């Protein structure tokens, strides 16, 4: 790496991606415009997952609970208490932070396979809780947020997030902020320590780093990012339901990250975008959506473990973060 030169290149690349997405708002046809807004929000979820899985090497099978924490944190406060959008969004973030701190403190006592099973079980508890409190959450049927709760007031002026272009811009804003934050984190000292832990935890510990504290920070950062995606999903698309807390939603970000390239900043977005369109295109020919997810997972681990951007980085563009 050649210091400043590559830093500038990396930064420009990310700004270019954001600029292209901004320009697409004005030229995309209606259908793809809507899809891309959704993909951007979901790829924030994948970016959060990537923080933990890609950089710290911790494979969690329970990240749906963090997404759901944001989803319900924002959705329930907006629906039942009529909280305004910024407050509801903040409630989602706080829910994610509290939950991920608690889960991190407990689950990080285990490693490897036990960590996966523990996270999966905690997520299952959260999933069941959404049914247990179905008076509030209405379980599988879910809540639909009305248009009035999805307006962002700034004085007398307001942004209507049910409007496609506004929604797209809001999704892009969240996407850009989180993308730049993850870029900053993975290039920071903390990010380097996480990679060191992934490669060899014992040695990192011997070098004097508190690996538990570093991993805990990673879990909380990852949890809050995933919660921000959940909260944004609730407010932008107006639906809050149990299915988002199910095991499937823990597995999807794993798939997106694996496909796009674990431990690359743009990989989660590439993976989410690609998979969303694969499923979208194939589902017009067949309803066998799960089959594609399954086959994709197996082929990825067998032949393509580094994912799209991971392979590109290995072969051609060494400076890709």
């Amino acid at each position, binding site marked *: 790496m050649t210091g400043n030169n590559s830093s500038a290149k990396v930064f420009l690349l990310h700004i270019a991606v954001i600029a292209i997405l901004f320009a697409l708002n004005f030229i995309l046809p209606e259908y793809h415009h809507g899809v891309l807004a959704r993909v951007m929000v979901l790829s924030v979820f994948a970016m959060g997952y990537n923080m933990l899985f890609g950089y710290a090497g911790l494979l969690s099978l329970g990240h749906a609970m963090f997404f759901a924490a944001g989803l319900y944190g924002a959705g329930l406060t907006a629906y039942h208490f009529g909280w305004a959008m910024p407050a509801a969004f903040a409630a989602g973030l706080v829910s994610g932070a509290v939950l991920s701190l608690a889960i991190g403190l407990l689950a990080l*006592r285990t490693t490897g396979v036990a960590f996966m099973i523990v996270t999966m*079980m905690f997520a299952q508890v959260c999933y069941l809780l959404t049914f247990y409190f179905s008076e509030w959450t209405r379980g599988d049927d879910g809540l639909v947020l009305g248009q009035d709760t999805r307006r962002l007031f700034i004085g007398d002026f307001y942004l209507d997030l049910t409007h496609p272009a506004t929604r797209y811009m809001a999704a892009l804003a969240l996407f850009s902020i989180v993308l730049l934050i993850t870029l900053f984190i993975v290039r920071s000292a903390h990010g380097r320590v996480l990679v060191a832990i992934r490669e060899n935890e014992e040695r990192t510990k011997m070098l004097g780093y508190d690996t538990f504290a570093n991993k805990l920070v990673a879990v909380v950062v990852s949890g809050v990012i995933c919660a921000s995606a959940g909260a944004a999903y609730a407010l932008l698309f107006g639906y809050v339901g149990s299915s988002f807390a199910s095991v499937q939603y823990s597995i999807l970000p794993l798939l997106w990250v694996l496909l796009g390239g674990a431990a690359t900043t743009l990989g989660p977005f590439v993976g989410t975008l690609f998979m969303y369109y694969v499923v979208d295109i194939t589902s017009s020919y067949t309803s066998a959506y799960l089959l594609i997810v399954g086959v994709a997972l197996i082929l990825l681990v067998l032949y393509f473990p580094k994912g799209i951007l991971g392979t590109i980085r290995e072969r051609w563009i060494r400076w890709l973060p």
Partner: protein
Amino acid sequence: MAFGPHLLLAALEGLVTSAVLALMALGLSLVFGVMRVVNVAHGEFFMLGAVLAWWTASLVTGHPAIGFLLALVISPLIVGAVALVAERLVLRRLNYNPEATIVATIGMLYIIQQLALTFYGPQARPVDAPFTYRILFPWFGYSGYKLSIIAASIVLLTATWFVLTRTKIGLVMRATQYDSETAQAFGIPVDRVYAGVFALGAMLAAVAAVLIVPITQAHYLMGMDPLLLSFIVVIIGGLGSLRGTVIAAVLIGLSDGIISAFFSPTLAKIIATLLVAMVLVFRPQGLFGTASR
């Protein structure tokens, strides 16, 4: 019904769950113990067993026992063959890397589930029980078939225990579990043992499914709950401990039956899952297991 008989009924139901759970968890535990592979697709092997049982039973007419017995033979064989193919094509090429195999078995889960949905459909379908004899207690009559499930499970568990501890096959499996490299050096065909164990684990799940299908019907989504429950059993019982697995299955099955009879089933599941997660956090070797290597 008074409290005593009500409790007895809940306990009987719980024991039936335990019997099926013990078989399924044993399969999971063997695969994890010997191969270090967490088979997330185990629940789908269970589901496949049930669906194939319906298919087999639907092929023959006449007395229901004929169809059932045929299913009891054919369904585990097909499921075992599927598992064998999956092991050869996928798991072995991944070199049994724990994380990669988890992702791969998640993939298998989706593939099997989708194939079941496509070819079998979303309906739940029953298989007739081989006999309908009812045992009369003073307070209620209870299905004789359900009691025979418990008996069948005990027989199968004893047989597995016998094979594991008293035969050469069991010795080979234990040697592979203890130290696969040394076992290989002593001429044990480790990858054949792995393939066999993976198929055996799947077949145990399939047998459990055939036994339960006359009670609960076959459905393409039926794999998830038993999968989580058997994770719970395997963890509480401690890895590779047959005794622990059986005790834990009885414990979980009974408490599930009794708590769901008197409280909300969702609450029962929440409490059980949370407790087990805590066991794993604070005592990773399980309640009955010895510390892992």
